[in-house]
């Protein structure tokens, strides 16, 4: 049964002081995040997921690349590797492969993950290595001031598409699904409980877990696209996302008009959850076989 954040709060108490003391790295505050940024919410959901799992934080490693979202490991009281742009999944693969006992969680952004890091993303999924990737998608290169990202919607104004974006955007969760991701989910930061459950399930999942979090960037994206107020972006998510079950039902049973109305919406929910061989487990099996054969 899903234990919601509300339930967590209810059973464990609204003990934010204790949560802060346990999970936040002292000395790194304040954060770099702008007013209205959703990244802090993603961090909060991650903390609640970790709290629920009761993991020993000495054995959890956070890895990230470059960008706003990649600053998150710095705020966590645990080992953190803040790496080069786009390469976090490759670094994380080395950590997990060499020490499979560690829980490895990657924070990445849309540009970091699907732009410069696209190839590592694909191959991490393909290899099905047991790491959890939380990809925070704000449709923009935020840290550098609001340039076109691979996820920027068509028509959007960015500093490098001043007359509107003419490119087609990537759908990161669908890429993860197509590449064979064990666990793929997508939520927005306006979903207060579901991401906690997904991050939790992603960590538990023996395999590559990909959780895309739509997160508002009022400063670099919203401001230029008539979505500068935080509430406007949250409303945009409500208007432009649809739970996967609803989408599937409409596509199966709906009228052509109903189908037309949802065809461009972004599906949210647990999009894929499958069992397949995991890299470090399979490698260990192979090692045992090779070491044994050698003894003979």
């Amino acid at each position: 049964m899903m234990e919601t954040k509300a339930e967590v709060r209810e059973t464990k108490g609204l003990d934010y002081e204790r949560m802060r003391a346990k999970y936040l790295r002292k000395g790194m505050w304040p954060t770099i995040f702008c007013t209205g940024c959703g990244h802090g919410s993603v961090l909060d959901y991650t903390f609640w997921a970790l709290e629920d799992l009761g993991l020993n934080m000495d054995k959890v490693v956070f890895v990230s690349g470059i960008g706003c979202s990649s600053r998150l490991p710095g705020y966590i009281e645990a080992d953190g590797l803040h790496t080069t742009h786009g390469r976090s999944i490759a670094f994380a693969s080395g950590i997990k492969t060499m020490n499979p006992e560690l829980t490895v969680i990657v924070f990445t952004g849309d540009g970091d993950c699907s732009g410069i890091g696209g190839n590592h993303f694909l191959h991490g999924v393909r290899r099905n290595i047991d790491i959890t990737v939380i990809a925070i998608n704000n449709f923009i290169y935020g840290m550098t001031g609001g340039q076109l990202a691979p996820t920027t919607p068509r028509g959007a104004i960015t500093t490098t598409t001043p007359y509107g974006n003419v490119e087609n955007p990537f759908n990161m969760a669908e890429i993860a699904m197509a590449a064979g991701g064990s666990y793929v989910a997508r939520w927005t930061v306006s979903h207060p409980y579901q991401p906690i459950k997904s991050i939790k399930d992603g960590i538990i999942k023996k395999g590559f877990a990909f959780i895309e979090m739509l997160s508002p960037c009022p400063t670099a994206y919203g401001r230029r696209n008539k979505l500068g107020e935080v509430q406007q972006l949250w409303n945009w998510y409500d208007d432009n996302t649809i739970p996967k079950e609803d989408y599937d039902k409409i596509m199966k049973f709906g009228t052509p008009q109903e189908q037309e109305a949802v065809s461009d919406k972004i599906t949210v929910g647990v999009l894929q959850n499958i069992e397949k061989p995991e890299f470090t487990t399979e490698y260990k099996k192979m090692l045992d076989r090779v070491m044994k054969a050698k003894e003979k």
Partner: protein
Amino acid sequence: MEYGRVDLNLVKKVLGPKTQFEIGDMACVYGALLAGCKFFAGYPITPASELAEGAARLLPRVGGTYIQMEDEIASIAAAIGASWTGERAMTGTSGPGFSLMQENIGYAAMTETPVVIIDIQRTGPSTGQPTQGAQGDMMQAKWGSHGDYEIIALAPSSCQECLDMTIMAFNLAEKYRNPVLVMGDGEIGHLRERIVIPDKVDLTFRTLTDLPREQYIPFVPSKVNPGSKVPDFAPFGSGSHSYITGLTHNEKGFPSTDKQPDHDRLVRRIMEKITDDAEKLVKVEEYMMEDADIAVICYGATARPAQTAVEDARRLGIKVGMVRLLIAWPFPYSYFAKLSERVKKVLVPEMNMGQMVHPIREALDSKVKVYPMNKIGGETHLPVDILKGIKEVV
């Protein structure tokens, strides 16, 4: 937990006979196993693919891991990640892959991560002649990543040295917490000759912190080894909660991107931990230099025809000797300053259009005449080429 420890008997059993007829690439893999390497992340590239193949075949037999990554950027990234678990990690490649690795070599330098990179150099620029050896990456080895950092680069001239220098590379990487390069080339990498597996291997390990989390500061000079500028290491998973970033960081490891003194202190320290030991890192071999007026200065594959040429010239009564760089970077400036008093002329044969000739010229007194001898196109100099050069400058 013991990190990086090696079961030498098991390794020797896996490697087989003590004396073997092997190629340079494989000799590097042998050296890695003997040095306790537990992780190789690779990507196929000629003429270095045998590194990956050898590691894939031999590492699992000693309980280590070979992982084939999607490109060279990912390969070095995975090796750096693996190193942060406390184990010895490496990657290997050739020119184009080495170019791709440059950003993360800088990252390893900035984050003080021990990692070994074997570069079996081939011709360039660009794809060049994939199967042909060259010495095209000697400057890239030193200056390839942006910003200020120091690198240690070794240059083997034989298959035995591929083995020995790979062990040395791991020891230096661990000692200085820095990327260390073995600058092989396609000639030595694919050359097959006698190698002898050493009975005993001396290993250096990175110094682990003995402090609890509350007292451990990740980027201050060692508390365990007073006087060393190399910080004590805390592997991921050991409870230190270290934050490691390629951003300029303060001693706690926290980003400090707008404070000039923090950057100055950090970058000077990561450079000085190596430059302070520059004298210890001078590794130069002299041959027939006792009474020489002329020196042939070489490294890597070029040393082999150079040696023959020097012997031939001696038979003709020319007072010439050979100086071979075993450690190319840090460059042995002090050695060359003294060499200025001994020789009048130096020849610098290189399989490139002139790379190490620049620091050589910089280090020698201006009264010493420097003659570059550049051969490109994937062939080593012939002894007669170098002999001709010697005769011309006499």
